[in-house]
């Protein structure tokens, strides 16, 4: 498994853990659309964070579940991976 979270993986997680379908292309093209607008609320993001932690075996910072947009979330998560590498 890659040590960098891609828009593909985020898209898959959003669908699996929250039932929200947003394509990777859409996430890549409009990364600043808030999660709230996409239909992901705080519990939804919490589920995504938990799944990521289980998959990669790396604890995420508490701020991860408070990120407002996919861009901010990916930046934070990937910098955490980078720091841990």
């Amino acid at each position: 498994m890659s040590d960098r979270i891609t828009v593909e993986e985020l898209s898959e997680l959003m669908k699996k853990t929250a039932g929200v379908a947003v394509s990777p292309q859409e996430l890549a093209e409009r990364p600043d659309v808030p999660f709230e607008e996409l239909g992901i609320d705080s519990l939804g993001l919490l589920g995504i964070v938990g799944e990521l932690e289980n998959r990669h075996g790396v604890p995420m910072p508490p701020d991860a579940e408070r990120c407002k947009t996919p861009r901010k979330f990916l930046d934070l998560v990937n910098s955490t991976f980078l720091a841990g590498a």
Partner: protein
Amino acid sequence: MSAPPRRRAVVTGIGVIAPNGTSTEAFWKSTQEGVSVLDRVTREGCTHLPLKVAGEVRSFDPSAVIEERYIVQTDRFTHFAMAAADAALEDARLGRADTEDRPFSAGVVTAAGSGGGEFGQGELQKLWGKGSRYVGPWQSIAWFYAASTGQISIRRGFKGPCSVVAADEAGGLDALAHAVRAVQRGTDVIVAGSTEAPLAPYSMVCQLGYRELSLVDDPARAYRPFTEGACGFVPAEGGAMFTVEELGAARERGVPVRATLAGHAATFTGASCWERSREGLAEAIRGALAEAGCAPEEIDVVFADALGVPEADRAEALAIGDALGAHGRRVPVTAPKTGTGRAYCAAPVLDTVAAVLAMEHGLIPPTPNVFDICHDLDLVTGCARPAQVGTALVLSRGLMGSNSALVLRRGAADAT
């Protein structure tokens, strides 16, 4: 100082997800024909259990009617509730645009007896199988009795009074009474009712402790209240939602009024104290009649609780006589739930749907699988009975001791 004119609560919409039909039309066709859909339990993980017969909802595809995120985030009982609420609102011709500008004018009341057992079981299996890190966040709300009320209000944007009756089976009728009170206090629309999904392994094992549960494996003989063969009740899933609306608001919108929720009362006589339920049920009937301003002779049909336990059936037959006097032996009594099973809190709500439809169609549906009555009741069996039905009485008792009665009038009743 004269009292302000009383706001009246009427039914303008009905939505049904039942074992015998996933639309109001299909439910009524099957109900008035007296079709029994009780069958052997087929649900995965349940077939080895001693409960052999149930009323399963087999023709419901949640993905056809609910957005995927609600399917992932909620239990089957909430899927039923959201689908039934949509149907009830559509029947009342209330679209999203109608409440968007006035979100506080609409609310939700549901009753739930078992909550999201199937969802909860899955998460608990993750907890003990893989560890706490694998329990998803939706567990915090999906299993909960209040989930359906919350999710319907979120999904439809309703911000008016929202509540949950987390009680006994009779809570299904109490939820409708709560809706009436909310309308009387000033809310225009309440989506109210109950749905249950207790046919999953964990939930089913919980029910095995009920001594009133029928473990008979023949679908035609498992649930036969008011007969010598009474051997307990058969559980079911599904339920119904109503659009309960203020009469003036309904008239302003020009939608047909299907029924008036005229009177309700509830009592409590203790868990499995069936003999004592006679007094409690009779008192509930008297209270509901009094609130409706209805004489016993005005009742045209009784939808019985019909538990199927000999002492409970006897208590109910006697309670009907106690409360309605000589009329209690003449009034047609029916229990269509013998064809679908008892969906706990949703059972009396489905009976209320049947009562509204009986009034509209002038037809009292029969009691499937029941013949040779051993009580002094005019129980409608075999075929539906044509009758002018202007007023109906729905009765419900719960295993934990609640007794409720609801009086309904056809259309807008005597409102002027």
